[in-house]
């Protein structure tokens, strides 16, 4: 169990490095693969609530660390209406909320029905982006929700979701190597079949 937890933390950290080299797909509505969020969401469904919260804290904290933009502006007499920055740490709460959402399908995942988690990871990515955008609108003022933004979020969610079976496969392999069962019901069924 502890080995699996440590490995998922390392996997999240590795996803931060890989994410640096994943560009936006300009021909696909500026969408991108959000690998960090995907690894977190897939891991969240395989672990208990305390580990999920630990992963949410690490992911949100590092995500904000790499994307935080300073508040410095020029002369306030010229730039009278500066654009607000988002508070450092807001992503931690977003990650936790998405993690709890993923844990909602944990009973199905434990029965070996991981396909529901794949679909939910896409929905969670979309909700994550939507929530992030709404926070920006709330903090900076002016609600601008046009077709392009919705398509961009949907394409990003879809593109990211397509890679979730690979992440689940990696997690299953890691669990097997750590001798930890992440879907006990499916493992029990398998054992029963073997005995017969």
């Amino acid at each position, binding site marked *: 169990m502890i080995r699996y937890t440590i490995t998922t933390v390392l996997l999240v950290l590795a996803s*931060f*490095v890989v*994410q*640096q*080299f*994943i*560009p*936006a797909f*300009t021909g696909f*509505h*500026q969408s*991108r693969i*959000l690998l960090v969020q995907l690894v977190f969401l897939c891991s969240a469904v395989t672990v*208990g*609530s*305390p580990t999920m*919260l*630990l992963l*949410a*804290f690490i992911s*949100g*904290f*590092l995500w*904000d*660390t*790499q*994307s*935080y*933009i*300073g*508040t*410095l*502006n*020029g*002369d306030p007499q*010229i*730039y009278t*209406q*500066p*654009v607000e*920055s988002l*508070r*450092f*740490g*807001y992503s*931690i*709460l977003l990650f*936790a909320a998405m993690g709890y959402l993923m844990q909602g399908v944990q009973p199905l995942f434990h029965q070996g029905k991981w396909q529901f988690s794949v679909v939910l990871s896409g929905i969670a990515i979309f909700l994550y*982006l939507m929530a*992030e*955008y709404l926070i920006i*609108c709330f903090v*900076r003022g002016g609600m*601008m929700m*046009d077709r*392009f*933004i919705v398509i*961009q*979020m949907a394409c*990003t969610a879809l593109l990211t979701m397509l890679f979730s079976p690979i992440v689940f496969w990696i997690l299953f392999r890691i669990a097997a190597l750590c001798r930890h069962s992440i879907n006990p019901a499916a493992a029990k069924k398998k054992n029963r079949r073997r005995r017969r």
Partner: protein
Amino acid sequence: MKPLNLIALLLFLGAATWALTRSESAVRDIQSKYFAAISPFLKSGSELETHARAFLEETNHSKALETELEAMRGEMGRLRLIESRYRDLETENNQMRRALAFKKLTRFDVVGAQVIRRQPTTWWQTVEIDAGEKSGIALQYVVLSNEGLVGKIDRIDKDRSSVLLLTDEKCLVSAKVEGSREVGILSGQRSQADGEPRLRLKYLSKDAQLKAGQRVLTTGLGGIFQPNIVLGTIESVESDALNSEAIVRPAVDFADLSTVFVVLSGDP
């Protein structure tokens, strides 16, 4: 709820509150440590990317590249001559300013840098360049390309820095329209329709007489950007009861940004 889950939730909320209450300087320290930790990966990754791109380009367009290289060599020689002439004129200008007891000297030294990473997030427009404090760069320094203004330095480390692009909503630039008396604040837009970045020039006068194609330049006001740097061209103008706004097409092709120049002068 199980006691263990409740304890974990309380610890999580405590840690999240701690993170949310960090000051900007504390966040900058954390950022500096984070980027120092991942810099070996960034460096090797960007080198790998550069080599792969160079290899592909070389195999695809070796002939075309050779011709282009020749043309660029010629152009570089011409620019060197112009630069040396410009330096002479600058020195002469400074000498004359001194002679006139005019205290403010013009400085326009630049350092070249390569874009090594694009921001891997959806809503923020930044790029990472391979020059930092060691090259004499500091926060808020202006970043240019040969087409016009790229943005300003937002975060700095020893040998790399982050550039907040002009297309980001947070990058505000005091701007004027060439051939008119209109002055406003230019910034990126939150939503970039069809993926092509457009800028918004706000706070123009209600009856601004502007035409599509007019150039937009920096005013030099506000303490960050030097005057008369090209920002873009006007595409359309929208007016309401109080003021007008213009949609501006940026001069720089942000999708194809590879080499940039940081102006090594804090004086606008």
